[in-house]
């Protein structure tokens, strides 16, 4: 690589263009549309809402941005990820490296953590506490739900304001916090499981899901033809950044650029944070297209590069002052990798006279009954019905040459259902993300992953599986499969965790890297615990909060937030 283009200067440099970076940028621009921000993105632009690409996805199952995912070829995956795991850590399909990041392929499930999740260590002696409690995020959760246009149900006991009033520790919501949109209804195929839940004392709930525009229920959410599912790419494109470099066919100049100092630089992985002792001066990056290195100088640098790349970038940024990487003076960077164990129990019954098939491609039934403080010690569970079942693929049957009567017979013959759960895990120092040797085809350093489960954790997971089996048996289905699935980085947290003391984490409660003045991390990586639910709503809340902090704005008061429905995109 040749050096180098002229350094560019900005006030805020955000590394990454996923939901963390985009939500933060939106918050920073809210106060002053002229705020100078550059988003530096390693990946390319893959067009969203493109009809041809949508049809390609419908026909082939391959989404337009598949190239931005880690190469699934086992040989390449093995080269890019050096994994040491007794639980067979799965690196496939963990993230998207692209303009818009991993929300290009996320499901949009948007759940708040619960109050006890912020006190995991206090309650169990394992894992870690957050440096603040639920209350600190409460108003930001509300804002985030509106930003992502979450369809949810406040009548569920864990959401209901009565629970909040009578037992504030048990509810993740407070009075006057309706969801911006009503929930999706349970499907007919959910019915048997709902009834089994009830018989077992499990409260059925409706999955809160981010649906940003009018959703037409196509169920091809991995590539939404109309941008109904929130993606950070669409959200960023609406801010209309100047494109410094891209491979996109989108005509940047058609934009009116309402935020004149907002820039996006794609295909340019940051390779080093340049530090002058405690102060971040800027970032060096590779410009893959032009085969040069560049530097961007900034007053404030925020690493929003995901739970794998954020710690890796800190580790790459060594100097005399930071010989082991920025923020790594206590060997904390990359440690405490937390995943979700995924449990599943599937069953089958003879007969399907109702001809049920799953009609949405996202689940509608879930429960947080086991997501409570009592379950924290051995791992809380977030239950949901597998959205795939019951199912028969009509095109596959037709393509296989089956005649109509045969397909009808198969449809009515039997049905399969599956209940799944995320099991909360606790961070352990030994579980780690770091630098591997060599670089990937996307010019990022290879990744080292160490992830082991103890015998006690495996035993906990297996005992929790019994809860799932009971549901299938209550439905009077024959158990087909029952397993604890491989862990992976889809919901990875903990790798730059927040802590009060620099000895036990990487960033402080304001997300500033311990020991640095103007360097921050905004990613799932900062979450000390992963709890039992998907992380991204919490990440959006943290990003909004960081935006306020960086601008010196006081946090919003919930009671002062007016009805935000006007802000829900329609």
């Amino acid at each position, binding site marked *: 690589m040749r050096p180098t283009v002229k350094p560019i200067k900005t006030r805020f440099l955000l590394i990454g263009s996923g939901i963390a970076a985009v939500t933060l940028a939106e918050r920073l621009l809210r106060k002053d549309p002229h705020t100078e921000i550059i988003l530096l993105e390693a990946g390319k632009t893959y067009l969203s809402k493109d009809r041809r690409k949508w049809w390609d996805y419908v026909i082939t199952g391959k989404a337009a941005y598949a190239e931005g995912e880690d190469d699934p070829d086992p040989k390449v995956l093995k080269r890019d990820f050096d994994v040491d795991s007794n639980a067979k850590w799965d690196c496939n399909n963990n993230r998207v490296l692209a303009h818009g990041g991993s929300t290009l392929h996320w499901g949009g499930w948007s759940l708040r953590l619960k109050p006890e999740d912020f006190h995991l260590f206090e309650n169990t002696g394992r894992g870690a506490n957050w440096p603040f409690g639920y209350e600190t995020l409460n108003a930001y959760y509300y804002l985030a739900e509106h930003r992502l246009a979450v369809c949810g149900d406040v009548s569920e006991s864990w959401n209901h304001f009565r629970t909040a009033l009578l037992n504030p520790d048990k509810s993740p919501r407070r009075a006057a916090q309706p969801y911006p949109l009503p929930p999706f209804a349970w499907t007919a195929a*959910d019915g048997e499981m709902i009834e089994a839940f009830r018989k077992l004392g499990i409260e059925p709930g409706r999955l809160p899901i981010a649906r940003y525009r009018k959703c*037409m*229920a196509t169920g091809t959410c991995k590539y939404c033809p109309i941008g109904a599912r929130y993606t950070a790419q669409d959200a960023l494109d609406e801010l209309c950044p100047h494109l410094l470099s891209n491979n996109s066919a989108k005509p940047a100049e058609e934009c009116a650029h309402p935020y004149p100092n907002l820039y996006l630089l794609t295909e340019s992985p940051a390779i080093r944070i340049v530090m002058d002792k405690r102060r971040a001066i800027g970032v060096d990056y590779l410009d893959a297209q032009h085969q040069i290195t560049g530097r961007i100088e900034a007053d404030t640098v925020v690493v929003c590069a995901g739970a794998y790349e954020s710690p890796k970038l800190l580790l790459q940024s060594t100097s005399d002052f930071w010989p082991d990487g920025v923020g790594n003076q206590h060997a904390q960077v990359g440690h405490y990798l937390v995943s979700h164990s995924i449990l599943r129990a599937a069953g089958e019954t003879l007969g399907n006279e109702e001809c049920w098939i799953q009609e949405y491609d996202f689940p509608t039934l879930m429960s947080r009954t086991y997501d409570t403080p009592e379950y924290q010690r051995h791992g809380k569970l977030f239950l949901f019905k597998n959205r*795939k079942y019951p199912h028969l693929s*009509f095109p596959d049957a037709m393509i296989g040459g089956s005649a*109509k009567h045969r397909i*009808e017979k198969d449809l009515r013959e039997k049905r399969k259902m599956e209940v799944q759960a995320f099991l909360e895990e606790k961070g352990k120092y030994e579980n780690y993300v770091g630098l591997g040797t060599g670089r990937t085809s996307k010019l990022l350093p290879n990744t080292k992953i160490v992830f082991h489960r103890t015998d006690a954790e495996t035993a906990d997971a297996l005992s929790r599986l019994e809860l799932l089996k009971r549901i299938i048996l209550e439905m009077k289905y024959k158990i087909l499969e029952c397993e604890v699935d491989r862990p992976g980085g889809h919901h990875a947290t903990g790798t730059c965790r927040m802590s009060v003391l620099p000895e036990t984490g990487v960033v402080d409660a304001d997300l500033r890297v311990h020991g640095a003045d103007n360097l921050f991390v905004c990613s799932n990586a900062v979450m000390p615990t992963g709890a039992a639910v998907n992380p991204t709503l919490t990440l959006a809340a943290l990003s909004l909060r960081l935006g306020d902090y960086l601008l010196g704005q006081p946090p919003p008061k919930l009671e002062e937030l007016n009805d935000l429905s006007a802000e829900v995109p329609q």
Partner: protein
Amino acid sequence: MANAFPDDPALGHEKPPAEKPLSGLYLSEPGNLEPAELESLWEVFLQIGRTWSNVVNDSAGQRSSWLEFVQLRCLQEPSYLKTYRNALSVVRETVDQKGLVDAYRFLLVNPELSKETKEAKDIDTALKHAKFYVINEFIRVQIVAGGFRGFGGRNHAYNYNGFLRGTRYNRVQRVRTYRPAKDGRTK
């Protein structure tokens, strides 16, 4: 093989028909089919509905989706123009040899041919190419454009992955929803 991640909104159950389905296309510059070619291709699509009797009005309700699909496939890279022309000549030859009814039976409901055209790497003749890249794709289009409703009789599904329901938000019932019956059974 690991299962798909639960909140991965992949078309969970619609497994990709092949690893690299677009790799074996006959290369051509993007362009339009002649109107007569388009109508002959539509005839192929019609035969899907006629064979499986899963649509009403002789596929009229599927025409606009199909047309969009074919046009995008011709006009944008990688272009299917040559692939469609190949399919037209395969169909023409097969009809000449076998007659209309047997030709479509041979092309559509023929487990042998299906077995030989499972993946892109199996495609080594013009016939298999037409089956894999054109007929099979048309079947998928037909199902997501409403053909799914033809299965299940009066219990048919309201929605299917890929079907654009065309209503706004959650107010109109887009799927069969859970309604507990008085006797405790789900309706």
